[in-house]
C-alpha cells in the first residue's frame, strides 16, 4: 500500500508552525516512515505532482497569491488542516484589519519612524507583486477547512497526534495541556 501523502504551505505566517512540525524531534524519522511529502517548504517541492491526502496550512490569507495557493491546496488535497492561530483567525497579521490599506502602506514605506532610505516616497507597485486584500482572512472564510489545530505555534505534540490520527484513522487524543491559543 502506498503511503499517505502530505503537503504543507505557509501563507501569511511566520514559519513558526513549520518550526513546530520540526519540533517533533526524533519522531520525524517515524513520520518519514508513515507518510510521503509532496509540495512543501520542507522538501522544497514547488508544485503538486500527485493527489495529496493531507494538506497543512500555516498562515492566514492576506493577498491574492495566498488566495491562489490556498485554492490549489483545496483542489489537490483530500483533507485540509488550518495549522495555528494565523490560519484559524488571521493571527498577528490581522492586527491590520480595520486599518485602511493605504494607511498601512504609508506607515510601512513612507511615514513610519524606521523608514530612512525611501526618499522618493515610493510604494511597491510592480505588477508582479500580489495584491494585498482589504483585510487578512481566516483560511476557512476562503475555502472549506476540515480540521483546526490552535496554537501560536501549535504544540509539536498536538501536530504529531493529529497527523497520527489522520493517518491511522484512530480517534485523536486531546490532552488539556496541548490545546492552547498561544
Amino acid at each position: 500500500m502506498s503511503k499517505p501523502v502530505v503537503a504543507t504551505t505557509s501563507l501569511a505566517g511566520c514559519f513558526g508552525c513549520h518550526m513546530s512540525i520540526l519540533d517533533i524531534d526524533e519522531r520525524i524519522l517515524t513520520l518519514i516512515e508513515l507518510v510521503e511529502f509532496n509540495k512543501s517548504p520542507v522538501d522544497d517541492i514547488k508544485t503538486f505532482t500527485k493527489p495529496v491526502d493531507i494538506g497543512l496550512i500555516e498562515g492566514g490569507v492576506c493577498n491574492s497569491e495566498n488566495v491562489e495557493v490556498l485554492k490549489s491546496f483545496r483542489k489537490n488535497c483530500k483533507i485540509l488542516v488550518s495549522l495555528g492561530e494565523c490560519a484559524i483567525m488571521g493571527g498577528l497579521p490581522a492586527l491590520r484589519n480595520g486599518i485602511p490599506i493605504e494607511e498601512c502602506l504609508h506607515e510601512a514605506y513612507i511615514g513610519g519612524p524606521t523608514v530612512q532610505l525611501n526618499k522618493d516616497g515610493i510604494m511597491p507597485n510592480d505588477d508582479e507583486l500580489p495584491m494585498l486584500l482589504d483585510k487578512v482572512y481566516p483560511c476557512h472564510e476562503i475555502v472549506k477547512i476540515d480540521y483546526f489545530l490552535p496554537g501560536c505555534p501549535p504544540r509539536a505534540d498536538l501536530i504529531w497526534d493529529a497527523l497520527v490520527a489522520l493517518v491511522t484513522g484512530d480517534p485523536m487524543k486531546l490532552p488539556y495541556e496541548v490545546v492552547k491559543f498561544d
Partner: protein
Amino acid sequence: MSNLIKFKIDGKECMAEAGKFIVDAAADNGIYIPTLCNMKGVKPKGACRICSVRINGRLMTSCTTPVTDGMEIESNSAEIQDLRKSIIELLFVSGNHFCPACEKSGNCELQALAYRYQMMVPRYPYEFPMKPVDASSPRIIKDQNRCIFCKRCIKTIKDKNGRSYFVFRNRGHKLEVVLDEEMGKTIDIATAHLAMENCPVGSILVKEKGFDTPIGKRKFDKEPIGSDIKL
C-alpha cells in the same frame, strides 16, 4: 440545619441551604457550572448567560436563580454544553482576541473557558471591529478590543466615596466600558492592580507590567478552569 433542601443536577442527588443560588449550591456539591460575569461577593446579574441551565424546560441563569426543594436541573447535557460554547465563540468573534500577543493569556477566564469547551475555531465569522485602546491614564491601559462588558470592574473598583472608576459609555453596538478620565489620572497602584485582577479578560492592564509568569506556570496552563470545584 433544618433549612436544608434536596434537588438534582443531571440526575445527581444534591443538598443545599434553601435560597442559595444554583451555581453556589452546585459548587457545594462538587459540581462546576461555568461563570464569567459572576464574581464572589458581588450581586449576580446574569449578563453573560454562560451559566445557563435548563429547569422545567426553560433556560435560566444559575447565578441568579435560587435553588428550591425538589428542583431538577439539567446542566451537562450536550445541548447546554454547546449553548455555552456558542456564547464563548460569540465573545471571541465580536471582539479582537489576539491571544498570542495578550498580557492576560494563560490567566484569562474567557480563554480558559474556550479551552475547557475545546473551541478549535468559532462557528461564526470574525467581525474584526475597529476598537480603541485608551492609554491616557498614567497607571492603566484600557483595551476595548478585549472587553466583554461583564461589569465586574464597574461593580468592584470604587474610590472611598463609592464612585466607580469604570463607567458605561454609548449604547447598543457602540457600547463601551471606559475608565473615567479624571479618576483615571489619580488611581493608585493597588486599585489599578485590583482592577486588572478583577477583569476576567485582558481589557484592563496595569502599565509596565505583563508577561511576567512563564508559560507553563500560569493559572490555566495545566488544569482547566473549574478544577478547584470538587468534593
